[in-house]
C-alpha cells in the first residue's frame, strides 16, 4: 500500500505517526522514530505493514498497559536521539528507573513483550540490585510473596556433597524437628497409642535385628564399632556384643529401628524432591550411613543419644531464629579451607 510505503521509506518526512492499540482498546498515535525503536513495533510495521492508520493500529501485547506504554515511549523518545552523550544517557537511565518495585516488574514485563532488550536489561539490573543481599523474609516482603513453604518443606535436608560436618549436624537437627512435627500431628489426630512395651526375649530381639539388617542398608547398633562403616563387621559385632545390651534398650529406640527396617532404604538425591516425610527420613538415614559414624546409634544408646542431643540443641541455639535460611546459605557457601568461626 502506498500509504505504508510512505510511512516507512521516507524518514525525512517531518511528522509521520504510527498507530498503536493497547489491550484495553485505547488507541494512540506515536511519532514514528520513537515507536520504531521497539523491535516488535518495527517488525509489525515493516513485515506486516501495520500501524499506518487508526484502522490498522498495531495491537500491542497484553502486558503493555497504557501507563507502561507511556513510560516505554518516554524511554524510547530519549534514547533514539542520536546526539546524546553516554553520560547523559546514563543519568537519564538512573532517574528513569526510580519507581516502586511493582512498576519495575510491570515495566520489565512490558519491555520484554516489546522485545526492547536494553530496557529489559536496565530494569532487570535494578530489580537485581533490590534483591541483592536480602534474606528470604525481606524478599517476601518486597515482592508481596506469600510464605507458602510448608513446615516440612522448610525442614528438607540439605545435600551434603562435601561431607561438611555442619551440614550433617543441620540435617540431624532437621530430622529431629521433623520427628517432633510428626509427633505433634499424631497428637493432634487424637489417637493416643499405648507405648509398645517390648518384652520379647533376647533371642527374638536378636533374630529380629539380624533379619532387619538384611533389608536395611546399615542399621548400626554397634557402639564399639562406631568408626567402622562396613555392614559385615557390624553384623558380626552385633551378634557378639549386643545381645545383652539390646534387651535393655528403650522401647523407643527399637521402634525407630523397626520403622527404618520396614520401610526399606534407598539412597536418592534429595534436592527438589517432593518425597513424603517417611521417604525423606529414610534418605536422611541413608545419607547418614554414608557419611556418618554413630547415627541410629543415637536412637538406641541413651547415653550417646543424650550427648548428641545436647550437641544438636546447642547447635540449634546458636542458629537463633535465622535457620533454615541462613544455614543453607552459610553452609553452602561457607569456607572450606580453614575451620572458621561459624557465624560471619
Amino acid at each position, binding site marked *: 500500500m502506498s500509504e505504508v510505503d510512505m510511512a*516507512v521509506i521516507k*524518514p525525512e518526512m517531518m511528522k509521520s505517526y504510527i498507530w498503536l492499540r493497547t489491550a484495553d482498546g485505547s488507541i494512540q498515535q506515536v511519532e514514528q*522514530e520513537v515507536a*520504531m*525503536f521497539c523491535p516488535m513495533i*518495527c517488525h509489525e510495521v*515493516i513485515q506486516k505493514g501495520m500501524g499506518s492508520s487508526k484502522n490498522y493500529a498495531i495491537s500491542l501485547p497484553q502486558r503493555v498497559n497504557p501507563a507502561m506504554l507511556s513510560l516505554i515511549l518516554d524511554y524510547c523518545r530519549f*534514547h*533514539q536521539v*542520536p546526539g546524546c552523550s*553516554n553520560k547523559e*544517557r*546514563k543519568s537519564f*537511565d538512573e532517574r528513569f528507573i526510580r519507581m516502586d*518495585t*511493582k512498576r519495575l*516488574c*510491570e515495566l*520489565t*514485563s512490558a519491555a*520484554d513483550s516489546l522485545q526492547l532488550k*536494553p530496557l*529489559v*536489561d*536496565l530494569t*532487570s*539490573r535494578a530489580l*537485581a*540490585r533490590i*534483591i*541483592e*543481599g*536480602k*534474606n*528470604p523474609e525481606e*524478599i*517476601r516482603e*518486597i*515482592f*508481596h*510473596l*506469600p510464605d*507458602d*513453604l510448608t513446615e516440612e*518443606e*522448610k525442614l528438607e535436608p540439605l*545435600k551434603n*556433597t*562435601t561431607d561438611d560436618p555442619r551440614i550433617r549436624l543441620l540435617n540431624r537437627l532437621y530430622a529431629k524437628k521433623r520427628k517432633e512435627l510428626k509427633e505433634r500431628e499424631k497428637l493432634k489426630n487424637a489417637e493416643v497409642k499405648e507405648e509398645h512395651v517390648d518384652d520379647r526375649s533376647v533371642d527374638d530381639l536378636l533374630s529380629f535385628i539380624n533379619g532387619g539388617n538384611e533389608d536395611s542398608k546399615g542399621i548400626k547398633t554397634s557402639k564399639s564399632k562406631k568408626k567402622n562403616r562396613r555392614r559385615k563387621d557390624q553384623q558380626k559385632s552385633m551378634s557378639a556384643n549386643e545381645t545383652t545390651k539390646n534387651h535393655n534398650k528403650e522401647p523407643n529406640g527399637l521402634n525407630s529401628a523397626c520403622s527404618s527396617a520396614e520401610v526399606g532404604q534407598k539412597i536418592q538425591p534429595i*534436592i*527438589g524432591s517432593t518425597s513424603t516425610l517417611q521417604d525423606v527420613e529414610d534418605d536422611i538415614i541413608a545419607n547418614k550411613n554414608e557419611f556418618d559414624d554413630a547415627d541410629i546409634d543415637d536412637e538406641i544408646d541413651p547415653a550417646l543419644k543424650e550427648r548428641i542431643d545436647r550437641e544438636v540443641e546447642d547447635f540449634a541455639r546458636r542458629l537463633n531464629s535465622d535457620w*533454615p*535460611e541462613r544455614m*543453607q*546459605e552459610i553452609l*553452602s*557457601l561457607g569456607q*572450606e*579451607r*580453614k575451620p572458621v568461626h561459624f557465624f560471619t
Partner: protein
Amino acid sequence: MDFTKLLPEDCVCLIISLTSPRDALRLALVSPALRSIADSDAVWERFLPCDYQKNISGSSSPSLLSWAKKDLYFYLSSHPILIENGTMSFQLEKETGKKCYMLGARALSIIWGETPEYWNWTDHPDSRFSEVAELRLVWWLDVKGKIETRKLSPGTNYAAYLVFKLRRRRYGFRQRTVGVHVNMEGTTSGEVRSVSLDYPQNVPQQAQERGDGWMEIEMGEFLNECGDDGTVEFCLREIDCNYFKSGLIIEGIEVRPKNVDRSTKWTNCKIHYHSTACPSGDARLKMEFVKS
C-alpha cells in the same frame, strides 16, 4: 498480590542471574515457585564461567558435563579438577564463580629441574597432582610459571601464590628471603618482593597455611581486564651462589581472585553506548552493560 507473577519466567531468570550465587540460594528459600527458577540450569549456567565446558571436557572428569548446573557449580568450587594432561588444576571461586587455576610443578619451568642431583620428581600424598618437585640441592633457584590471561575471568584482580612445603631438613631458607614477582610477559612491570618462606607462621606478608597440607605465599597481583593482555608470568628466584638451598617441595603456583568483595560488583558497572545503523535507515542504539 505477588509481584513476581507479573514477570515472565525468563525475566526472573535474568534477574536472578544478575545477582550472585549466594542470593540465588536465598531466593530458593522464598517460595516453591521461586525455588524452581532459582535452582534451574538457566540461572546457574550463568554463574559458571562462559567457557566452563571447554575446561571440563578436556579434564580428568568430563562426565561432570551431564550434571545439573547448580551441583556442578558447587562441585567445582570445592573440588579442583585436573586439566592439561594433569599438569594444571581448575576450580571456581565460590562467591563469584571466577576461575582459579593451579599450575602444577610439571607446568612450571624450573632451572636445573631435569637434573636428578638437583631436583627430584616424586609423588606426594597431599598433592593433587601426580608429581611434585623436591629440591635436593641448588645454588641457582629459579622457578617460573605463566598463564594466558584469556584463560582467566575478565574484570578480576588476581593474585599468584606459591604453594609449597619445607622439609624438616632444609637449608638456605631460614631467616633468608627469596625474590618473587609477577609481570606481564615482555614487560618488567611487576615489583620484585623479598619474602621469607621459612618464618614463624601467620605473620602478615609471610607464608600461610592453606589448610590442605601446604603452605602458600603471595607472589604478586595483577588485574585482568578483558583477557587480552597476553601472558602473565610468575617468578621465584634466589640466585645468590654463596649459599645453597635445599629441602623445598613445590606443589605449584595458584592463581586466584584476590580480595573478593561483592559490594564492588555494582559500583563498577559500566554502560557502553554504541550507535549502529539498522537496515531500515533508523539510528539504532545498542546498549551494553559491562560488569567489571
